[in-house]
């Protein structure tokens, strides 16, 4: 896939049905009333990873106007999950602001966003607005407010507290994301058991970086598991971050089976 079609440069304008397509118009109105997501091909857009197996599983790419949950595999891997989430946020809104809303506790425990490092994952620090909140409730409120704002491209909400996002709260976010055609990402410090109304759910951990030179740290690598997907298959992959081009790549299969084994894991195993 060519690099330029991978990103959606501009958001589509809010949906307005043409007057002469009455049945289609009605169908959409009903869908909207019922709060069901738009069919994927009609949604504001998909965000292809540019990696065939992942895009296939997602039915073309990550739904842009939806809520996605990204959990760190463990607390020590919070930075990996953050990097993954911020990279996605950066893809979705190249020219617009990205809001990073977090509990103050998360900043204390996992570290505060560091501008020079944001640049490394392809997110311009000048476009980032960092919002801290004392309570998960405030994080959710700020996310919803931000999703409504025209100038915001993507919203990342970081909630550490376990079981702080219930079905109702996540559903509100999900609807707000769909209505305003913006990407909403929920970042968790560890995998949650509580069900969340997200389009997809990911568990992201760190993976050993490919050793291209002797005893040096290679490019960032992520062990990514897609454990819930409303529109397709599940899967698990090892990705590498391409610092120069700001995109993910599938980790090359080495002579040692680092990535190959994981790719073929059945879905049930991935869920567990």
């Amino acid at each position, binding site marked *: 896939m060519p690099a330029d079609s991978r990103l959606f440069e501009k958001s589509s304008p809010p949906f307005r049905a043409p007057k002469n397509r009455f049945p289609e118009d009605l169908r959409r109105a009903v869908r909207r009333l019922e709060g069901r997501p738009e069919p994927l091909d009609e949604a504001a857009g998909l965000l292809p990873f540019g990696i065939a197996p992942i895009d296939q599983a997602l039915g073309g790419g990550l739904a842009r106007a939806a809520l996605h949950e990204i959990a760190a595999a463990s607390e020590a891997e919070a*930075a990996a999950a953050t990097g993954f989430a911020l990279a996605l946020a950066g893809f979705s809104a190249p020219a617009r602001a990205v809001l990073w809303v977090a509990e103050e506790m998360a900043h204390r425990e996992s570290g505060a966003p560091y501008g020079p490092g944001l640049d490394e994952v392809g997110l311009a620090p000048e476009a980032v607005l*960092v919002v801290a909140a004392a309570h998960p409730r405030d994080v959710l409120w700020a996310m919803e407010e931000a999703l409504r704002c025209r100038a*915001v491209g993507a919203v990342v909400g970081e909630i550490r507290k376990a079981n702080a996002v219930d079905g109702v709260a996540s559903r509100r976010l999900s609807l707000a994301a769909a209505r305003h055609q913006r990407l909403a990402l929920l970042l968790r410090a560890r995998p949650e058991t509580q069900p969340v109304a997200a389009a997809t759910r990911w568990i992201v951990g760190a993976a050993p970086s490919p050793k291209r030179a002797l005893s040096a740290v290679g490019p960032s690598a992520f062990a990514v598991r897609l454990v819930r997907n409303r529109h397709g298959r599940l899967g698990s992959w090892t990705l590498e971050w391409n610092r120069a081009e700001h995109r993910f790549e599938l980790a090359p299969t080495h002579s040692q089976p680092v990535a190959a084994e994981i790719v073929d894991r059945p879905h049930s195993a991935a869920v567990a």
Partner: protein
Amino acid sequence: MSTDRIRRQWREAGGREEREGLAVVGKRGNVERLVAVDAAAEQRGLRGGLALAEARAMDPALVVVEEDAAADARLLEAVADWCQRYTPLVAVDAPDSVLLDIGGCAHLFGGEAALREDLLARLARFGLTVCASIADTIGAAWAAAHFSGPTCVESGKERDCLAGLPLAALRLPEETVAVLARVGLKRIGDILDLPRAPLAARFGGELLRQLDRALGREREPLNPRLPAPSYFTEQRFAEPIAREEDVLATVARLAQRLCGLLERRGEGARRIELALFRTDGAVRRISVGTARPLRDPQTIRALFGERLAALADAWDPGFGFDLARLAILAAEPAPPQQIGLGANDDPAALDELTDRLAARLGSHRVARLVAHDSHVPELAAAALSAQWSTARSENGWADFRRFRAAVALPPRPLRLLARPEPIEAVAAVPDGPPLRFRWRRALHEVAAAEGPERIEGLWWSEDEAPARDYFRVEDVSGRRFWLFRAGLYRDLAAPRWFLHGMFA
């Protein structure tokens, strides 16, 4: 004042209404002395400054309470805040006075005498015994109020009315008054006609300065407790309001008035404060900031709506508010077209969002990342309140990128801990990266490491920190951390290691 405060407390706690005299005692030197007495005690001949033992002998039934200077100061400040209903220029004059500059305000209350009556009546209802006087100078008003002079010193008559008052009315230190008394100077009238030079030589410049101030020969500035706003407007209610909707409707109405004024002057508000005067005398102040000059009443109302929602139960309306005042504490020039175009403008939309978030969560909690020209990692970037850093500038990141490209700066972590956390680390060679380290009780085996990147401490600064050797390490499961050793190895007996950040 202290006795009033204590009686008020008793009344609130459940009606301990005593006839006996009440006195507040505090330690002065090595002796427990009376600090304040109430009217009943005063009738029995007790005065402030009396030793407690002596007072007990004079009045065995005296009720004695320990002094609490902090509580008195709080009460005085609350009274000063409450006095803002008469004028924005109110100063606290510790320990027991409040100064009001009512220039230009008195006619709103039906003249000076009527204002004084109103003030005394309201304060008496709160259970405070107050003396008040009105004069042209602070000194004269103070003297008249403290030494039962006339309630209203007419303009130009300061000299006549001060002449009969004791010298202590000039706000002089006690020693000066005592020295003056020793030479037979007891009343202000005694020194009015004395030659100035010997007086100053003998008793110090303070005496003449206070005299000049009281007589209006020297200007004395009032130091208001809260800065006087450039714009404010208020609404009084015959019937107190308590509901949130009523308060917000009032805000919208007041904002409407202010915005007209702002528009005529071509300004917009950056900081707005709502003061609500509760019927029981407490004053609630709620303020919101804005990221760009604002003069839209509905937006102002919405911001206060967020603020009230954030306060939830904390803004206790009690029996309601009888006065609401909206003040603009900071205004900036705003060209008229800026607001008209706002609706279709992305930065404006972002600023509106910032304002809403800041109103609810607090201004410091909504931040923009700013690059600083510093080689020390924690100083190189900062999160500044988004309302006060400019939205459209690039905040120093272009310079940072140029610098990074020029020196080929090694990668920086995605998340930085506010304070580097100490870790236990074992290194293979003294100067090398750690082999394994323990952070937050978990052991990490280092699989790969890059470094060191030496970052010098601030050797020119007072709190000089040692140089740091930073390593970028990856543990066996792929987590990447930014560690450093504080200090050069050769200078240290036992090297100390810290974890500072995490890479994606």
